[in-house]
């Protein structure tokens, strides 16, 4: 991208060149993905720490668009420990959802591709798969069964032409190895609907999605996600589209259910209040990178990255009088044309002289607390 203007306009020749190159790259990656009979040894791997359910390591997920390659996820690493909730926060477009879709292998292909890095999924008994190399056939057995996802838009995430019961039955029947009868599947569905707090479960079983309210639909989505007692639940902004009272109920529900089936939750949101309530660990993302990660206590008590500090400051606090809510100045850099220095530098109010150097690495503040900022280089590494 040598000759690109800063105003974002591209010449026709540029666009053609980009699409040709994109097609070449994506075709190559697609061909690799579409191979038949991939031996298990190729995607079998071992966890760095057997206490983790998922380990993301240096994951790069790019979108090859006609205006250039978008580095949606650009080298993130974090772990989801077994039985814990990890909250992923960041503003819109910072790569939270793309991270979760990478884990599910549900990226919009062929444009969206995992380019490098690995996602290790702990299957128990010392077995682990590298999701980035797992073929589609095997993924289908894991999705909905081992990992499941709650989407952010309950209004459109259910198929409008099928009854609620049918849609939940489908997951159970699909991942059922015992050969359950239709009645026992129905029984399980009703039980799930009751578990997520739907009183009229028999009635809802026969209803269509449009007959339910947003909160009810989100409960159905949760019931569907929990149908096979998955080990990992990805909740992608599950309460964003709901009003506050329903939000609290849904969060309560998720917390109780998590304790009941003891699974790990990857909780994606931009709502810090929700994170404080739900998460054990917090990962803060900015422009496709992890800028800070740590336990919830560490992040909320000692936010270290200027971005995290800004986020905390821009959150309204009850009982604190403020004329105007703080807002982080500037805007997110253009995802196609990322700078080669710290992505946050142009918006940062705490810059030090070293900030114009290359992107800062992760600095360890404590055993669990890491931050990617030059301000901590001196105290920790003595450079």
């Amino acid at each position: 991208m040598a000759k690109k203007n800063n105003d974002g306009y591209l010449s026709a020749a540029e666009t053609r060149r980009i699409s040709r190159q994109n097609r070449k790259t994506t075709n190559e990656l697609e061909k690799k993905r579409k191979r038949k009979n991939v031996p298990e040894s190729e995607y079998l791997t071992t966890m760095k720490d057997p206490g983790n359910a998922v380990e993301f390591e240096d994951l790069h997920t790019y979108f090859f668009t006609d205006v250039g390659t978008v580095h949606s996820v650009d080298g993130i690493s974090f772990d989801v420990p077994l039985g814990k909730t990890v909250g992923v926060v960041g503003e819109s477009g910072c790569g939270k959802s793309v991270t979760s879709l990478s884990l599910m292998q549900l990226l919009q292909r062929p444009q969206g591709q995992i380019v490098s890095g690995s996602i290790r999924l702990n299957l128990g008994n010392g077995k682990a798969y590298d999701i980035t190399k797992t073929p589609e056939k095997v993924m289908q057995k894991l999705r909905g069964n081992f990992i499941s996802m709650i989407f952010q838009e309950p209004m459109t995430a259910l198929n409008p032409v099928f009854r609620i019961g049918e849609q939940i039955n489908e997951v159970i029947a699909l991942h059922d190895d015992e050969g359950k009868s239709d009645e026992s599947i129905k029984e399980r569905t009703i039980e799930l609907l009751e578990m997520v707090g739907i009183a009229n479960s028999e009635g809802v079983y026969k209803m269509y999605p449009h007959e339910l309210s947003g909160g009810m639909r989100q409960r159905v989505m949760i019931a569907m996600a929990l149908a096979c007692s998955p080990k990992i639940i990805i909740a992608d902004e599950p309460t964003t589209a709901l009003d506050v009272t329903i939000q609290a109920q849904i969060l309560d529900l998720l917390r109780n259910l998590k304790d009941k089936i003891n699974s790990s939750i990857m909780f994606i949101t931009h709502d810090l209040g929700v994170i404080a309530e739900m998460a054990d660990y917090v990962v803060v993302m900015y422009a496709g990178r992890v800028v800070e990660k740590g336990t919830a206590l560490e992040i909320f008590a000692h936010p270290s990255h200027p971005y995290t500090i800004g986020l905390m400051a821009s959150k309204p606090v009850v009982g604190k009088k403020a004329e105007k809510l703080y807002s982080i100045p500037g805007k997110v850099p253009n995802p196609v044309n990322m700078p080669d220095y710290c992505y946050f530098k142009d918006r940062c109010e705490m810059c030090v002289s070293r900030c114009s150097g290359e992107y800062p690495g992760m600095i360890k503040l404590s055993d669990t607390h890491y931050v990617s900022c030059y301000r901590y280089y001196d105290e920790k590494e003595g450079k």
Partner: protein
Amino acid sequence: MTKFIIKRILLSIVILFFVTLIIYAVMRCLPTSYIENIARQKSMQPGSKSFEEWMTQLEAMYNMDKGIIPGFISWWGQMLQGEFGDSWYYTVPVIEKFNDTVWLSFVMGAVSMFFELAIAIPLGVLAATKQYSRTDYTITVVALAGISLPTFFFASLMKLVFAVKLGWFDLFGLVGRIHDQLSPWGQFLDKANHLVMPIIVLVVLSIGSLMRYTRTNMLEVLNSDYIRTARAKGLPEGKVIYHHAFRNTLIPLVTIIGGSLPGLFSGALITETLFSIPGIGFTSYHAMVGGDIPFSMFYLTFLSILTLAGNLISDILYAVVDPRVRIS
């Protein structure tokens, strides 16, 4: 639902009344008048009455001496009794002539509609699932060619290749030269053989729009959230497309198919004329050019009824495929 249907039928009758009024008025105002032609011919004969005298006599004879509104009312009165009168141009009862010709067009329409659906919908789905691939581009280009080709050009091309050069089919007509000497089964095959080219023309020209419509709708559905949900459940790709996505694509398709019901009976005027096939399109074209009011009125009224019925059927089918519009 029953209440809805009854309401719609009653409404349809009102619509039909005004539609026929417009058709009748237009037919009466047409510049070609069958009666005028006859009167002119008769007055040309040596020793005959004058043109005006003939006109008055003939108008009274054909019941056309009234104004448009009284004429229309008496036409409706007769229609309600099932009386459509005799065709002026063909000089047989309208219903008899219609019955003689419509079934041929219906067979042609039904066969070509069957092939149209059987080819266009799977192609559209295929093109959508493989968006921007070589398959998609090939299908789209072929479909576009189908839409853009004019009937007369494509039909002439077919005739040139398959009738003139290869000699597989006859150039035009419905029956071959030795038709009368064939056994009943042979006669059937002879007719079928003559219908091959017209049907191919009809199918090729109609596939394009339906295929593109299917493709667009399928793409829209495939990009929706519930398809991602279906994939997140772990469903195999085939089930995602043919169960979850296709059911949703059916919703807009049903309206199109319901709306094409009158097309089954209306005949294909240009194709039938090009191949000289005595179907309803061909017949009604000649009736209309000849100013045959009873036949044209019957034909157009029949089509209006079918159009209204087609709309009602597609509304009912809508409710069948889309639970959101179900009327309780």
